[in-house]
């Protein structure tokens, strides 16, 4: 009996910290192979490449911790980016951003409502909204790319504060902020608790549907914010933007050790997951691995990360 508990505790800590271990190992390895890897410039570069998926994945982390799933975020990024660009022709960009974030939160609200109140399985509910939102992108753009030319708006995606790119600063602020929300507020606690056992939380006298829906709102909000950064970085949006981003966000989250069964996870570890995926992609590009092969390997990494989690739970 004792042995078993030790094994479980061990598996638990491997799952929690294993990703960090792999991450550090990879960094050390790479810094030996490629001399410039640990240079300030390269680190900032990796962080900047990670910023859009990183911001999106924060929301995904909340959704998955609440035992939900959200595959509409890629479409939502496209809609947000398109609106952010399009609305600037009618108003100041700051107002446009505000509107866009509101739309993002509302789409999240819809996802949450369909999942928590109508009881559509989250993956199906968000499959529906994913399709609807992508349709809205086409309607809004008319199928053509949209452009904007605003140096002040471009700061969000391209600017620097001192030596550090602004999107990196935004990413770090968001990670710190949402990690704080997750561990230090009632919402964060209830999100974990209801992901672990929703009925038990309901029978504890908590407004459980409200908090459940709120996790989806965070998912939508952060996808929109990622869309704003995307628009500002490229200063143009095609209707196909953000396709497959939801998979990267989900992959980073589960590689970061957030349990697909819900109940446990961390925003900081999701960031590590995002960085890990970015670095792996960089290395593959350096090594000249074909993009098609990269897909296969990325899929295998996701399955290993999730499989480790689910199988160790099954063994318990």
């Amino acid at each position, binding site marked *: 009996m004792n042995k078993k*508990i030790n094994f*479980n505790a061990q598996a*638990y800590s491997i799952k929690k910290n294993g990703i960090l271990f792999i991450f550090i190992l990879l960094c050390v390895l790479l810094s030996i192979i490629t001399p410039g890897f640990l240079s300030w410039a390269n680190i900032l570069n990796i962080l900047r490449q990670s910023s859009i998926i990183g911001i999106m994945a924060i929301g995904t982390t909340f959704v998955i911790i609440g035992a939900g799933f959200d595959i509409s975020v890629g479409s939502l990024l496209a809609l947000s980016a398109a609106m952010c660009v399009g609305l600037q022709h009618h108003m100041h960009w700051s107002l446009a951003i505000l509107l866009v974030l509101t739309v993002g939160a509302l789409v999240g609200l819809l996802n949450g409502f369909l999942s928590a109140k109508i009881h559509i399985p989250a993956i199906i509910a968000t499959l529906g909204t994913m399709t609807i939102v992508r349709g809205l992108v086409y309607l809004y753009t008319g199928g053509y790319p949209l452009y904007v030319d605003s140096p002040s708006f471009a700061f969000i995606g391209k600017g620097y504060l001192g030596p550090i790119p602004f999107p990196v600063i935004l990413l770090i602020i968001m990670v710190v902020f949402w990690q704080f929300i997750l*561990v*230090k*507020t*009632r919402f964060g*606690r*209830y999100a*974990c*608790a209801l992901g*672990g*056992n929703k*009925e*038990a*939380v*309901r*029978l*504890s*006298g*908590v*407004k459980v549907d409200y908090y459940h829906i709120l996790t989806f709102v965070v998912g939508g909000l952060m996808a929109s914010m990622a869309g704003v950064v995307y628009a500002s970085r490229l200063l143009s949006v095609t209707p196909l933007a953000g396709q497959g981003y939801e998979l990267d966000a989900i992959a980073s989250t589960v590689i970061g050790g957030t*349990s697909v069964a819900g*109940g*446990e996870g961390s925003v900081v570890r999701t960031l590590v997951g995002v960085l890990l995926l970015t670095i792996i992609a960089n290395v593959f590009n350096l090594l000249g691995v074909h993009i098609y092969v990269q897909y296969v390997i990325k899929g295998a990494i996701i399955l290993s990360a999730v499989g480790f989690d689910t199988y160790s739970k099954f063994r*318990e």
Partner: protein
Amino acid sequence: MNKSFPGVKALDSIDLDIYKDEVHALVGENGAGKSTLIKLLVGAYKKDSGGIYFNKQKAEFNSPVQAFQNGISVIYQENSLIPQLTVIQNIFLGMERFTPLGLIDETKIYQEYLDISKKLGFELPPHEEARNLGVAEQKLVEILKALIHKANFIIMDEPTASLSKNEIEHLFRIISELKSNHVSILYITHILGEVFRIADRITVLRDGKKIKTVFTKEVNRDEVITMMVGESLKDTYTPQPTGTKKSQRPVLKVENLRRKPRVNGVSFEAFPGEVLGITGLTGAGKTELSRLIFGADKLEGGQILIKDKSVRFHSPVDAVKNGISLVPEDRKKDALILMLELYKNITLPTLAQFSDKGVLSSGKEFDMTRQFIKKLDIKTSGVNQVVRYLSGGNQQKVVISKWLQTEPKILIMDEPTRGIDVKAKVEIHNIVRKLAKAGVCVIFVSSEVSEVVKVSDRILVLSQGKISGEFKRGVSQEEIMRIILKEDK
């Protein structure tokens, strides 16, 4: 056929033999070890010692599947059919007949079905989906399935629990039919009337021990009840004066509560400082009643009054606001978040109290948790231990702590001592008495009559969703058992 079986753990060296072509009844109160015994028989649990002999051969089953393949079938209380499959598909599941081409041979299956149902005098709609059948019909499908799988020993666990009178008659006819077809039956029940109608012999279990096996012809009901309850009801527990004061106003009053199918018009009052015991058979509606009062399920009729004021609960949120707490029947499913730490489980209902301007203070949470670890003597490595790794008794104490820190006026406890060891059980009884002394109204719901008698000031008996008896402290366990078992005269 012969089956002998000395085991340990929840069971203490039980020898049981079942003859060929026999209906053998296994009776005992809840917690007597009946279901443990079945699970050991079919290999769902591992036995610590002892052996099972089936058809004069030593049989070691590692799983119920293996037992099933060897001709031992269990028909559980809850039906285990696949709702979307038809009667025939369910019966032949895993035993399909095939044509030489490997396709399912519908004609052959249908013929076999007709043969067997004619032999037993059944009439079931063969192509109806199982979910459209009544409970009794579903039981028949399970029996047929067992026979198709060549079962010659069938264990039936409370088969009549949700059947009507006519359906029970039908089942009994089929049981005697099975008997004449050389099938042995182990029949597990609370209901003595049934036992005396169909069983050849009766084995009584109590506290994991076999009391006696008797021929049905040689005993009467009262003798069996005495065997089930036992003589030594006096234990070390010192009765306390009842907390109920006549002059006091009831803190909770429920009038004609209804929710189909299990709660059919329940009215009672409960007073501050009182332990109100509610007991009855499995399926009598105890859990459903508890959930109704707590607002976990929607009320279909009747009303709840708290301190003479009518209240409507849309969800447990409202119940908790009104000072009601519920320790639910199934702690793992309905009360605990197993993957979370002790303190997170305990502070769940009152998290707002632990936050300062929206920021949680783990220091405060730890203090509260430590206080309860000490108060209820929870055996744990600390406030950060994940609840999954605690023992059943300690998990239950966590659930109780969680509710005690809300300082409830009314605490409903549904089977609070199920599946926990004897020591923890006594501790929980003591907590209940202490709470009542401090003025809390505790509604103690349990199907174990002995503990209800021990801790309650007043006892209500629930039968088929209605209150069928009320007793004061000092009533004997036998008297209550008589009321509980009265239904089947």
